[in-house]
């Protein structure tokens, strides 16, 4: 079992390092895109009377 845990520990370190790098880059792009979409949606929905929530 020692080998199993050895492999799992190093797999975790390797996987986590690469995912951190990748997700940090792609996540930043996602935030930019989300903000753009929110702005666009809010511009479309903007009306002087304001919206109401649903129950």
């Amino acid at each position, binding site marked *: *079992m*020692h080998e199993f*845990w*050895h492999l*799992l*520990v190093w797999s*975790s*370190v390797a*996987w*986590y*390092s690469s*995912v*951190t790098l*990748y*997700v*940090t880059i*792609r*996540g*930043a*792009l*996602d*935030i930019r*895109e*989300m*903000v753009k*979409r*929110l*702005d666009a*949606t*809010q511009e479309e*929905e903007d009306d002087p009377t*304001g*919206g*109401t*929530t*649903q*129950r």
Partner: protein
Amino acid sequence: MPRFSWLVDGSIVGLYLLGTMMAGLWLRKRVRRVEDFLVAGREMNLYLGIASLAATEFGIITCMYTAQAGYTQGFIGAFPGIAQAVAMLVIGLTGFCVKPLRESGAMTLPELFEKRFGRPVRWLAGVVIVMGGLLNMGVFLKIGGDFLCLVCGMDLEYLVYVMTTLLVLVAVYTMLGGMLSVLVTDFLQFAVMSAGLLVVTVLILSRIGWERLVDTVATHHGSAGFTLPLQTGTGWTYVIMQVLGTTAATLTWQTVVSRVLSAKDATTGQRVLTRTSFFFVCRWLIPGLWGIAALAVLGWKPLDSLDSAQRDALPAAIQEKIAASPVGQPLAGLTPEEAGGVPTAVQTRLGDASLHAMPRFLGSFLPIGLMGLLVAAMLAADMSTDASYMLSWGSVIYNDILAPFRRGSWSHQRAIRWNRVIIGLISIYLLVFGLFYQIEGDVWSYLLLTGSIYLSSMSVLLVACCYWRKANSWGALAAIFLGAAVPVAHLTMEKIPDLAPLAARFGKDGAGIAAFAAAALGMIVGSLLKPSSPDTSPPANASSHA
């Protein structure tokens, strides 16, 4: 002695806090609708979702109890993480329950249940979710404060100030920006947290070495530190509870559910789960390794956690038994009479010895500079978790518990204001509960048991709601009552001296399994007893009658 330098490490932490607050406040003006506040306008994309889910599901509390599991059980302490990773992968790949949930258009689980089981079930489900969730997160702040005080070498008397400062910072940006702020700060916190976790782990592996870690586990735990204890009844109880609990958590834990519901579509929600699944192995294994390293360097010396006056007050024979106790069970060698003679404050300190071992070890192991990175990483982990949990349970209070009391339609401004008030009240509760409640036994078992107040019934309700045509409101109500009654009864028994031995014999895992069994039985019997009604379509079609 802890090596925290207020100049170097303090500057790193200060920089992180400044960045987080700026990021958190940046999006507050874009919160115009209540959907923006609660589910980020359903605009969350895949990688932001992964970062957010990972950051939310890893707090200081996680680091503390997973390190405690490594310290007291060895490598096998990471088993719940493996179980959760498998559950998340399978659910993400198949879309089991989460696909119909996202497609229903609901903002919370109880909202989905209303479509199938009616309004009373929605309200009751909301109450149970909030009760379980708040009891669960009630201990987060105190344990986070414990960690920071120990690592920085501060006296635990400063705990209340550390807790309050942390809470105020988190509450400010969560109340102002809701889910939008939470997502962006989660992203930043994911990057800082991950960098800290990885650097510390690599340092431990290189300085202490793999062989020493393996030898430590073999010496203190034997083969049980590497393999599941399936040869005993308690071993099976533990395994079954972990599998049930982690699967149910993936399906119904409000912070996971809110990420699925914030995704721009069902496919994105499923991908967030699939691609985050292996993170749950890391989430248990990496801090678990820190716990094993603490055992290797500090050893198991529970008496060292007492001050000299407390230690001198204990008879020599009792001190010897405590010193020779198995790791993590300081009172295991004492007779009931001997244990009864140990003052409560001393028992508490001894009980916390395994929990505090990892931060004590890191406080003396890491060099200046890396201490700052570690503290920033742990602050990041904790703030993202606290913010998300406050928002998630606040959303259920607003959306489901207060729903019957909201007459007519509310303006978005009024709805957002109420959500902010709810989050403020949850913050106050966290501070008060964290200061006064003392956990019995290990932290993970407490979290799993308090979570099972709702995990058991809500997972049964969700599965039945999605896939069992005969499920109805009677079954749902019976499942909710029975699923909550067992863990609440167990927690109460633990606090009553005459009943505490019975609760201990049954165990938290046994109580958790009983909760799942009771909820399932309630759903089946209740549903079969109710006369059949025409509206029994599963919610995969719910959007059509929403």
